[in-house]
């Protein structure tokens, strides 16, 4: 099995070719070791960091940006959105505060990506 994948580990966007040979994956076209890791993961278990927003009360804006603290399986993104969209928090919030713990049993949290003080 062979797959063309555009590496997105960095802005270079290397055109990888990932090939399965027996039980090994051979990555070519990469210019750094991140490319190998990305190519194999994209072939076997594609994951994405999910950035989105939640409702915040009492802050400067009515929405607080949040993101998964690590990449989650690509196939779980819409299920994750359904959960995150239910969350409401109150200001103040510090960058890094956990707003959803252990998202969908992945062991990965959803955290605030911005500090938002309380405004009167």
């Amino acid at each position, binding site marked *: 099995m062979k797959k063309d994948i555009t590496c997105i580990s960095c802005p270079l966007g290397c055109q990888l070719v990932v090939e399965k040979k027996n039980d090994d994956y051979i990555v070519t076209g990469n210019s750094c070791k991140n490319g190998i890791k990305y190519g194999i993961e994209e072939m076997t278990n594609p994951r994405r960091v999910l*950035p989105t927003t939640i409702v915040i009360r009492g802050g400067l804006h009515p*929405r607080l940006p949040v*993101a998964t603290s690590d990449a989650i399986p690509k196939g779980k993104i819409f299920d994750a959105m359904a959960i995150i969209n239910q969350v409401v928090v109150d200001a103040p919030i510090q960058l890094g505060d956990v707003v959803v713990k252990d998202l969908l049993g992945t062991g990965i949290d959803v955290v605030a990506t911005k500090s938002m003080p309380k405004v009167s």
Partner: protein
Amino acid sequence: MLYDIIILGGGPAGLAAAVEAYDEGAQNILILERDLELGGILNQCIHNGFGLHTFKEQLTGPEYAERYINQVKEKNIPYMLDTMVLELEDHGDTKIVHAINQEQGYMLLETKTAILTMGCRERTAGAIGIPGYRPSGVFTAGTAQRYINMEGYMVGKEVVILGSGDIGLIMARRMTLEGAKVKAVCEIMPYSNGLVRNIVQCLDDYDIPLKLSHTITFIDGKNRVEGVKVMQVDEHLKPIPGTEEYIPCDTVLLSVGLIPENEITRDADIAIDPRTNGPIVGELRQTDTPGFFACGNVVHVHDLVDYVSEESVLAGKGAAKYLRGELKTDANFETVNGEGISYVVPQHVCVDNLEQDLTFYMRVRNVYSDVVVNAVIGDEIIATKKSRKFLPAEMVNFKIKKEVLEKYPDGKITFRVDPKEAKK
């Protein structure tokens, strides 16, 4: 009070310039920001991918901004929010900044130097003249981004995006995640204007079609957008009869380019480069009017904030050097865009002001592979930039060593795209 440096804009460029100027010993710095918080456009760019160069990790826009905001706060650099700069006056050693806000009213602020970091704004529907009615539901991608990410309004349910700039691509994903159906991204050029990783992560991941060499030729709907007519274009970008396709939708997002915001700059008679639509700058981002510096998207539109920060450090250094009376003014080199290059920043270089190597930023005019970018003085190639691929969407940063520049007599440095074998 006479300030040392007033910085016009508290976005990524202004913040990085402020921090660097402070570290270089400048006192009495003031940042003027028109929004209600520091951080500029990064506040609405909630997606990740920022900071790979600067911090070697993937940050979201707000996280990247907060790192710089925290530094500004730790150093107690003063800033005024909700404050709009209206005009700049140059009186040689003193500049006067006209600014206004609700608390202090109309202010005339005196300063020795000013750093222009006003950023850029989006081209609008009017700028590209799409025929049709003017229904609601037509937004620039960045406006939609602010509505959704900061203000909590969903702008539409069925979307067609015109232009494949990065904000358009990012918004295609964002709208999809929030439950909208993005039916197509139309790009008039035969290649995308967005970064490769955004095409992969924002379109391919969600099976959103990217229609290259296609444009919207009509927006239908009287009160609200009801659909768009999309046509294929030929090599002269003219719509090809017979290729019409009607796509029903309630929203059109435009991602058709950014324009540096230089009204204040022009009014102050600071020279503008028609290639970049930004001020002409030197190696430390000094403009042609002594005491005025500029950096970030107001100088030229960057695709990565990391490069904005990098450039803004130069402006901060430059302003501090100027205040110490150490900034040399005689430029040795003028930069010229040769074959295949649309612009080069900085436009001139004074080698004596360099502490180390100098990075030249430029864009190529077309998609190229099997080429190099050469820096040429006279007939001699002084440096070569290699890459497997050069894309108009990805700014080329071309570093040349100070020692190399020192070897050549004053004159012009031409940057040009050459076939690979032309290099000796």
